[in-house]
Every structure is written in structure tokens, then in C-alpha cells.
């Protein structure tokens, strides 16, 4: 096929990607958007296969068959709670692919002059960082290694030295060709990918995953420069923009700078041993209630706002919470879910988990929209959320989470907290909400407590 037709097909693919992303702006059209983007991908791939440069299809078929088997199996089997690690894995292989394409170009002497070398080196380095970083993120999220930050003395100095090494070698390679040094560069980039994710804790993963997503996008765009291929540049840049935007939004939703999220090993503090009910060490009291007490409170309320956190997903209680919500709605209670932007392990994760439990998307309300309604809410029901409801973020300058936007449950007339114990959340700090006179604690496993609430509400 003549090159001009192939380029036209690439243009069509780029248009499909942009339209697909546009359709993603509403739940009604989102599924169609994904299909449009996938169709664009199909067009680009068919056009590529008709490229006159391709003379041997054997290895392409081998790769596509293996890749399809792995991709389909992964996508079909993954549980919604495990979505973040799946996305990390897919993201990582994308970065790896970009680095491999750049490497084959360099190692076979295809790249000469800075116009080729800059994108080749960029794609190889950033793609490798993204590959290795995503794999560590995957291991952490899958809990095949600890989700807590891993730190050692001098860690930041070592990381900075590795980064400097990468920059130095990159500069040298622009002037002098050297395959061994190029390989060293890739190895250092892989090392840096591992090293920079190690000190980042589980609850900061939404930022890391977004950032790695941006990295892979940019390395794909750089590969587009290497191959003079516009669809790669457009596709990669769209993802780079999306990842960058999400990274900024997520760190804003944590009230911390990106540098703080990436470098401070937040959440490595030792947890305070948990007390259960009764007066705490400093004499503040906690009111603990029974399922029946809480059921009465909920059943006679006009409005209930449910505030789910990652603990809900850990307890697999999405379906139980939806059952309770439906029961309350049948009694005429207005029920909404307040979703904090960083609830879960990736941006928007909590919405997916609740959608899986058949919660209609109209009930999923964003933080900025629900907060002004909180003072008119009868009961705020907090399930497995901690730091994202801690009033210290508003009231206590000097608290590690001060400045973080929270769901203002303390504004509601009554607060009910479902929680295993008084243990601290990810930030390792006490939550003064639990000592608020408005608050009733219902201790126990979230799923079990919710089922008890369901039967208690039925008996009211």
C-alpha cells in the first residue's frame, strides 16, 4: 500500500483516539468511546501490516498470538479490586515495548544525529523507568511485597546519583556512539524505576500509577519521533497529557505536592497500637454503639451519605453496602455516596467498585459537590475510610495531612463509623472524628457490620 494511504489511516486512528476520549466524559457514552478508540487502534494496526517495509509476518504473528492470550486472560480474570495492579501491569509492558523499539533502532545503528538520538534515548530511558516502576507498583498492589514504604539510609542520594548517571550517559551518547554504554543506560533506568517506587506507600499509589501512565505515554510519543510516525506521537501525547493531569489532580486531592508524594516516604510512621472503645490514653471518650442503635438512626433519617474508603474494598463489602442503601431507599431515605478522589488505589477506583455492586452512577457524588450538602445530612456513614474524613486536615495546622481536602462528615448531624478498631489510617495519625460527641463507632469487620445493619433495619 502506498505510504500516503497508510498515513491517512494513521490520521483516522488519531481522530478516533480523540473522539473516544471525548465520549469518555459521560457514563452514558463512555463505553462507545472505548469502542471508538479500539476501532482507531484496529485501523492503525491494519495499515501498519500493509506497510511495504514489512516483509516477514512470522514474528509479528508470534508476538500477537502470545500477547492476545495473555491480555485476554488478564482482562477477563482480574477482579475489580485488583484493577490498579492490572493497569500497572499493562502500563509497564507498554513502556517496555517503547524502550525495546528504541533500543532496536539504536543497537542496529539506525539513529544518527541529535534529531534521532534525543528521542531514542528519551524513549529508552523513560520507557525503562516506566516498565520497572510499574512492575514494582504491581508487586506492591498485589501484596506480593509490602505496601509500606521501603526506605534505607541515603536512599534519596543513591536515587539522585542514578538519575545523574542516566543524564551523564545520555549526554555522552549524543556525541559518541557506544552500545555498551547504551545498555548501561537502560540498566540504570530500570534500576531507577525500581528505586523510585520502593519508598512510596500503598495509599499514594493513585499518584504513582498516574505518573507512570504519563511516562509510558511520553515514551511512546518519543518512539513516534524515532519512526517519524504521527499516530504514535498523537497517541502517546494524549496519554502523556492525561497522565500528567491525573497526577496533578491526585496530589492536589491529597493536599500534598508531587515531590512530597514521591520523595517523603509518607506513611512509614509506626502505627499506634489500637484501643477498642472506652476512654483513650488522654481521657477522650469514644461512643460505641450496637447495630440496632445504628439501624434506628439510619431508618428514621431523611438523608444518609455513605462515605466509602479502601477498607470497604478490602472487606469486600461493596455488595453489602449497596443492599443496605437499597433497603434505606425503600423506606424513603435519600441515600448518596460521597467519593473522595483518592479513595482506593488508583484514580476513581471506588466508583468502579461501587458500579460493580450495581450502584447507579447518579448516586456517586464527588467530594466538592457533596461537602456543601453535608450540614443538611442526617447521618454520614463512614465505611472503611479514615484519613479522607479526618477533621485534622482542616483544623490542625502541623498535622501531616493538614490542607488535604476531606469529605466533611463532621458537618453532618450524626456520624457513624464502621471500623475494625481505633487504629490509625495510612498517614499514621489519630482521627479526632472518633472522639466527636456526634460520632457513633460500630466496631467490627465492615462486611459483617453491614449485614448486621441490613437485618437490623429490616426489623425496625
Amino acid at each position: 500500500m502506498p505510504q500516503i494511504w497508510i498515513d491517512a489511516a494513521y490520521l483516522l486512528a488519531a481522530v478516533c483516539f480523540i473522539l473516544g476520549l471525548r465520549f469518555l466524559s459521560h457514563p452514558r457514552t463512555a463505553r462507545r468511546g472505548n469502542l471508538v478508540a479500539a476501532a482507531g487502534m484496529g485501523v492503525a494496526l491494519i495499515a501498519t501490516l500493509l506497510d511495504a517495509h514489512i516483509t516477514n509476518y512470522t514474528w509479528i504473528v508470534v508476538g500477537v498470538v502470545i500477547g492476545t492470550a495473555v491480555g485476554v486472560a488478564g482482562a477477563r480474570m482480574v477482579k475489580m479490586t485488583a484493577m490498579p495492579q492490572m493497569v500497572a501491569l499493562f502500563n509497564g509492558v507498554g513502556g517496555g515495548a517503547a524502550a525495546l523499539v528504541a533500543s532496536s533502532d539504536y543497537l542496529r545503528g539506525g539513529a544518527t544525529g541529535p534529531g534521532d538520538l534525543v528521542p531514542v534515548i528519551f524513549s529508552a530511558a523513560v520507557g525503562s523507568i516506566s516498565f520497572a516502576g510499574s512492575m514494582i507498583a504491581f508487586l506492591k498492589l498485589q501484596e506480593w511485597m509490602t505496601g509500606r514504604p521501603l526506605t534505607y539510609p541515603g536512599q534519596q542520594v543513591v536515587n539522585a546519583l542514578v538519575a545523574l548517571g542516566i543524564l551523564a550517559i545520555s549526554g555522552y551518547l549524543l556525541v559518541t556512539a557506544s552500545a555498551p554504554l547504551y545498555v548501561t543506560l537502560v540498566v540504570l533506568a530500570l534500576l531507577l524505576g525500581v528505586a523510585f517506587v520502593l519508598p512510596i506507600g500503598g495509599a499514594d499509589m493513585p499518584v504513582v500509577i498516574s505518573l507512570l501512565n504519563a511516562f509510558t505515554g511520553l515514551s511512546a510519543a518519543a518512539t513516534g519521533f524515532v519512526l517519524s510516525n504521527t499516530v504514535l506521537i498523537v497517541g502517546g501525547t494524549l496519554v502523556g497529557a492525561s497522565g500528567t493531569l491525573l497526577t496533578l489532580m491526585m496530589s492536589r486531592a491529597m493536599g500534598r505536592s508531587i515531590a512530597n508524594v514521591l520523595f517523603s516516604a509518607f506513611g512509614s510512621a509506626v502505627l499506634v497500637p489500637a484501643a477498642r472503645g472506652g476512654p483513650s490514653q488522654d481521657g477522650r471518650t469514644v461512643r460505641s454503639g450496637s447495630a440496632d442503635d445504628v439501624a434506628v438512626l439510619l431508618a428514621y433519617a431523611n438523608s444518609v451519605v455513605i462515605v466509602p474508603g479502601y477498607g470497604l474494598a478490602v472487606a469486600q463489602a461493596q455488595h453489602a453496602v449497596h443492599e443496605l442503601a437499597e433497603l434505606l431507599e425503600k423506606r424513603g431515605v435519600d441515600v448518596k455516596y460521597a467519593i473522595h478522589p483518592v479513595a482506593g488505589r488508583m484514580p476513581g477506583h471506588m466508583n468502579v467498585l461501587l458500579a460493580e455492586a450495581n450502584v447507579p452512577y447518579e448516586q456517586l457524588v464527588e467530594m466538592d459537590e457533596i461537602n456543601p450538602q453535608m450540614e443538611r445530612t442526617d447521618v454520614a456513614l463512614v465505611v472503611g475510610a479514615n484519613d479522607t474524613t479526618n477533621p485534622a486536615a482542616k483544623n490542625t495546622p502541623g498535622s501531616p495531612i493538614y490542607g488535604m481536602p476531606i469529605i466533611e462528615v463532621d458537618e453532618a448531624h450524626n456520624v457513624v463509623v464502621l471500623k475494625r478498631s481505633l487504629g490509625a489510617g495510612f498517614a499514621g495519625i489519630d482521627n479526632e472524628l472518633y472522639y466527636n460527641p456526634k460520632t457513633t463507632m460500630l466496631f467490627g469487620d465492615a462486611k459483617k457490620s453491614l449485614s448486621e445493619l441490613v437485618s437490623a433495619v429490616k426489623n425496625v
Partner: protein
Amino acid sequence: MSAHLLAEITVLVLAAFVGFEVISKVPTTLHTPLMSGTNAIHGIVIVGGMLVAGSSHDWIGIVLGTIAVTFGTINVVGGFLVTDRMLEMFKGRRPAPSDEQKAA
């Protein structure tokens, strides 16, 4: 700087603006599908893998290209499928009392 390179940089800059514009309209409810959908889109790098794997006669090109195609396919196929699976779950209220009905 060649005209060709400048044209490519133009594409990059415009795509970045379009990207920011389009993506800032996606509600937080859909951020996870957005991320896995864009994830699938960067799998477009498979195009590079195919060109390398299909045009190489040396073992470095074949090995690196084939692995790149495999990785890219996992990225594309897995990414779009998993996004579709998620979006399928996003449903509105089932009995759906429409606004007109309420108003009537």
C-alpha cells in the same frame, strides 16, 4: 532543525493541548476507565514493534521486535477489554423515572 522535525513537534504540541482539553472534561467517576483506556491507547507503540519485527533480518531486531509486539499486544488487547468490562458496569438507575415523567 529540519522542516520535518518541526512539523512533528507541531503535532506533539497540538496533541498535548487537545489532550488536556478533552481529558479535563472527564468526571472523577470515570477516572479509572479513563486511565485504563488511555493505557490501551499508548499500546499504539505496537506499531513500532511490528515495523521492527517485520522488517529485520538480524537477530537483535527480531528478538527485540517480537518482544515489543508481544508487550504491545498485551497492552492494547488487555487495556481495551478491561476498560470495556468496567464501563459495562456503569449503569444509571434501572427503573429510570425520566425527567419528563416526573414533570408530568
